[in-house]
């Protein structure tokens, strides 16, 4: 997601030019829409609503079709997300190892960071780390055999990094 951004821009670029360069690179392949949406989200951190008609035009689809796809998949965000995204697994294997209590703990212990927009807590349904439950991913880096204390340590460390980091992790765009 955000931390993996390959595009680091010193000056804001127009959304249209970001989308256009992605369309130029990926638009010709069959079934291009998902790869394009992934690329947009990788670069911008989310898929802005204003990107939808641009993508639609580039692929000769209706905006409704593109909007339908963006809104169907859990992975795509249409609003900017916090710089630290914590996905806690709440599926059966992690439930068997206390993930519901872990989720409740995370929501309570980090409520302030969530309220300030620094942190996004999301449920996820399986990270494939089920022999080492409970598990979570923080900006896509994975952690398992979690305890509430370990979760706090990892989340606080990430929040600290996000605060001290000067460079934006995602490209900024202007309309």
């Amino acid at each position, binding site marked *: 997601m955000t931390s*993996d951004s390959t595009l680091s821009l010193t000056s804001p670029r127009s959304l249209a030019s970001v989308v256009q360069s992605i369309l130029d690179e990926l638009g010709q392949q*069959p*079934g*291009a*829409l*998902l*790869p394009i*949406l*992934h690329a947009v989200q990788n670069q911008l951190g989310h898929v802005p609503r204003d990107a939808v008609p641009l993508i639609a035009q580039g*692929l000769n689809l209706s905006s409704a*079709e593109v909007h*339908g*796809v963006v809104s*169907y*998949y*859990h*992975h*795509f965000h249409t609003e900017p997300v916090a710089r630290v995204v914590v*996905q806690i*697994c709440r*599926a*059966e*294997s*992690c*439930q*068997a*190892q206390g993930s519901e209590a872990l989720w409740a703990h995370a929501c309570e212990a980090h409520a302030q960071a969530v309220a300030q927009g620094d942190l996004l807590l999301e449920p*996820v*349904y*399986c*990270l*494939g*780390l*089920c*022999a*080492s*439950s409970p*598990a979570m*991913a923080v900006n*896509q*880096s*994975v*952690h*398992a*055999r979690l305890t509430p204390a370990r979760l706090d340590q990892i989340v606080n460390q990430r929040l600290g990094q996000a605060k001290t980091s000067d460079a934006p992790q995602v490209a900024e765009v202007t309309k």
Partner: protein
Amino acid sequence: MSNSGLTLYVPQDSAAVAVGANEVAQALQKAVLAAGKTANVLRNSSRGLFWLEPLLEVDTPQGRLGFGPVAAEDLDGLLAAGLLDLQDQPEALKKTMAHPLCLGWVEKMPYLAKQERLTFARMGVTQPLSLSDYEAHGGWAGLRQALTLTPEAIVQQVTDAGLRGRGGAAFPAGIKWKTVLGAASAQKYIVCNADEGDSGTYSDRMTLEGDPYLLIEGMAIAGLAVGATQGYVYIRSEYPDAVRVFEQAIGLARAAGFLGPNLLHSGRTFELQVRMAAGAYVCGEETALLESLEGKRGIVRAKPPLPAIEGLWGQPTVINNVITLASVPVILAKGAEFYKNFGMGRSRGTLPFQLAGNIKQGGLVEKAFGLSLRELVFDFGGGTASGRPVKAIQVGGPLGAYIPESQWDTPLDYEAYAAFGGVVGHGGVVVHDDRANLAELARYAMAFCALESCGKCTPCRIGSTRGEEILVRLQRTENKQAQTQDIKLLRDLCDTMLNGSLCAMGGMTPYPVLSALNHYPEDFGLKA
């Protein structure tokens, strides 16, 4: 690999990384430098003995010696015990083996030695992206064999081996392939379903990250068998490491001639591309997956037409799970007879079972069909991690039944499980101890279905929401009459979902719900 000095291995599987393998590898590299030794720290795949990760292995003349679970802080002690002296000071072995983290010779550990690893033979042994490792451990033998055979003969081998779909539906792979082979079309496709969304399963992830060339080889063989020149691997967005490794593997394999326009100088073509999913569980259903690959919402298609006749972009398409395709190279390399000799009844070969949840020794156990859940969970798994009694075991993912003790001795075989309403599925085994509330897990099953339903058919879309409401009410009510009515309603609803849903999402959600209700009635406030 270097010819001089000691070789050490620290897995790079994401389940090892999630418990500190990167930190161990970095600290080890520093420690080697500081000690002034010559040693290579290599990143291998994981053996799948996850309770021991990070599992550090040292190559010695007698074989690989294992240590685990190792934390970066343990390295000083391990070095003091002679870890880095094993190459030049044979007498160091005794002291090293006396270290409390020493597990002995890795391949002689009972957990591994008792397995029958056909598909996972290289797991933990090789470096995932090393083409020379892959080839040195039997890689490409199946593809080379396939290039000497006619398409019909390849399909026949897969049919004779008795290989059935490992994703869950257990449909015979050979029959699917034969249909695609017989379908006339200028363009056919091989699609690999790597949308491993079932909780408690990770064998696809391990393969993508740990032995990617195996899947590439299996898909290339499938391409030769049915006359398909293009393949797609649809990998979940929750597996970013798998996507990264597999994309690198495709590039390296193509550069070396194992993919591309002239496979091993045969003049045959097979191209492969990764497509990343976007977090919709239902896209693990094959027709929803095809829709998603085409760039649409992952909505289930009505069948017929079968994907084998009209699949991706309307063309004949083989769509198989990762493990199905990864089982093909060994069948071609060693013959259908070899593979068929494992297993029981109509369940031939092996299945990589995945032990998960509340389990002491969670990990991957590849065994021939026919062993029991009791053997898996207690002999391999060592019971619960909490040390409390096992209450229920869910086999086959979120759509599989909760299995009570009365069925723990039933052999793991597709037909034997189907006979009592169980599902072997993708081989996931999630253990719950006696603190689990099966009424709550049943509610979760309905809630998950409501969250993930594609919405195309009514039983699944509406049924799951109504089902969750009933299960919430049941947990709250004290009124016996209302409870009896709701149980009847729930059973009716499950019947409608089972028989009226378009795909397994709605059609199988009743399995965990009804098994919980039937075997754990006390959790629903009913008399046992």
